[in-house]
């Protein structure tokens, strides 16, 4: 049996907080079996509220203040049903109560939000949950990048560079740059990719893409867009 299998809402409890005993005697009474699982009490001494401030600084995410922890966001969330531990309500709770360690432990989970806006749409308190989660993910990128999948970093960087330097998306180039940076260029020769690529060369779409160019006076736009916030 996996650790703590009997706990309801298991994903809310971290592994090292679960104590399982083979034989447990308490006050002379043998409580082995059904009662062998204990949770370490959570003492939360060092609240780190910097995270809350950082997230709030991003004007778009100030709505985080309105959250009443109702859980509607998690209930409908696309990714909560696919990725264990993905729980937008809980991420907001952690930010607001300064449980930064917990957040950092889940850094590789938080970024998997797909931006579907189901959460924002259903939030009864007008929290823009989707953008709050995106902001938390980006904040984690600056504090614990090493705990996040490289695919996430590369994906974000490739898009960002592309947007800033070109102002338009050259999608085939974007995909190629992404795969190369991860050493996954062999995927370019996967049958589905190869078929599409050859077809697009043949039917003129690649040429069209090469000719897309940049918006006018892009250099000045680039300075504004690329400057540090």
């Amino acid at each position, binding site marked *: 049996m996996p650790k703590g299998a009997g706990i309801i809402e298991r994903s809310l409890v971290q592994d090292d907080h679960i104590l399982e005993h083979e034989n447990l005697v308490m006050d002379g009474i043998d409580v082995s079996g059904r009662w062998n699982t204990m949770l370490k009490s959570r003492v939360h001494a060092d609240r780190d509220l910097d995270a809350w401030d950082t997230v709030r600084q991003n004007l778009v995410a100030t709505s985080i203040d309105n959250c009443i922890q109702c859980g509607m966001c998690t209930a409908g969330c696309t990714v909560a049903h696919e990725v264990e531990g993905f729980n937008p309500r809980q991420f907001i709770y952690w930010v607001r109560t300064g449980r930064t360690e917990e957040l950092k432990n889940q850094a590789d989970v938080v970024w998997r939000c797909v931006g579907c806006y189901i959460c924002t749409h259903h939030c009864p308190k007008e929290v823009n949950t989707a953008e709050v989660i995106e902001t938390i993910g980006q904040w984690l990128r600056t504090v614990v990048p090493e705990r996040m999948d490289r695919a996430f970093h590369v*994906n974000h960087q490739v898009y960002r560079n592309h947007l800033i330097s070109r102002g338009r998306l050259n999608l085939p180039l974007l995909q190629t740059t992404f795969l190369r940076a991860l050493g996954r260029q062999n995927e370019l020769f996967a049958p589905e990719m190869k078929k599409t690529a050859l077809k697009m060369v043949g039917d003129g779409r690649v040429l069209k893409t090469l000719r897309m160019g940049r918006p006018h006076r892009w250099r000045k736009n680039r300075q504004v867009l690329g400057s540090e916030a």
Partner: protein
Amino acid sequence: MSHETAYFPGCSLKTIDRAYDVSTRLVAGDLGLNLVEVEDYACCGVGELKGEGLKSHYLPGRNLGHLLQQGQTEVMVSCNVCYHELSRTAYAWSRNESVGTEINRMLEAAGEPGITETPSVRNTLEYLVTVVGLDKIAQRVRRPLTGLRVAPYYGCLYHRPGAMVSSIQVAGEDPERPHFMHDVLRALGAAVVAHPAETTCCGGKNLLSDERTAGKLTGRILSQAKEAGADVLALMCPKCAGGLDALQPRAIKAAGEGARLPVVYYTQLVAVAFGHSPEAAYLKDMESGSFDVIRRLLQAAPKPALV
């Protein structure tokens, strides 16, 4: 009737997803809509800068500034991502004065025209239903899609979050259970197949970086639509098309053969029903076998009545 409106195709429709752009233009032309492209467009930002606060409004803001500068206040958008991004910025500009001022300050610093009034950002689907009207669409049909079972698929950003994408709200679309695509397909004579995944997410944002999740999500959408009895899935977003059409083999890998299903843009179906050939609607650009399905349908059907 001739009616002029601005039109924003965006990066992907201008290049690899031209099928959506071309079919939008064919349909608009047939319905008397004169589309004027937003000049000197930039990317809508595809949401990638959302973690950077105000910066996320820069690219959409620039596009809206250009729209207003060319003397137009209304823009029709086919791509759901562009529609969402432009709507989001128009909404932020109109609702929050300090955000609006900041957006214009950034634009001014780059020598770009600012936003001077709230532009009306319209989704093509909603525009066809509310401005043109279903009656008129039905009247223009030359080759009804009788016998074709179509599963409509809306994705996410057409109708979520309700308040931000205001044009569909104004139009009376239901943000919980959108039905405008159902309505249009019915007007074309197609059999609409309802299915549970009409508005579930395809995971497009992390299509490359989180393949596992994306594969599961696309696999589920396709298999649910197919299970419900669809011959084709009709969609309205090039990002969704990336996962559901071009990378369908990955969905099949994740969910099995049940996820093998031809995929089209709904505008392609409208174009075909209006009498254009599958080639002219660029159905050959689709990767999931939709060209053959439509060609077979047309071969089986009697020749269209002459206009």
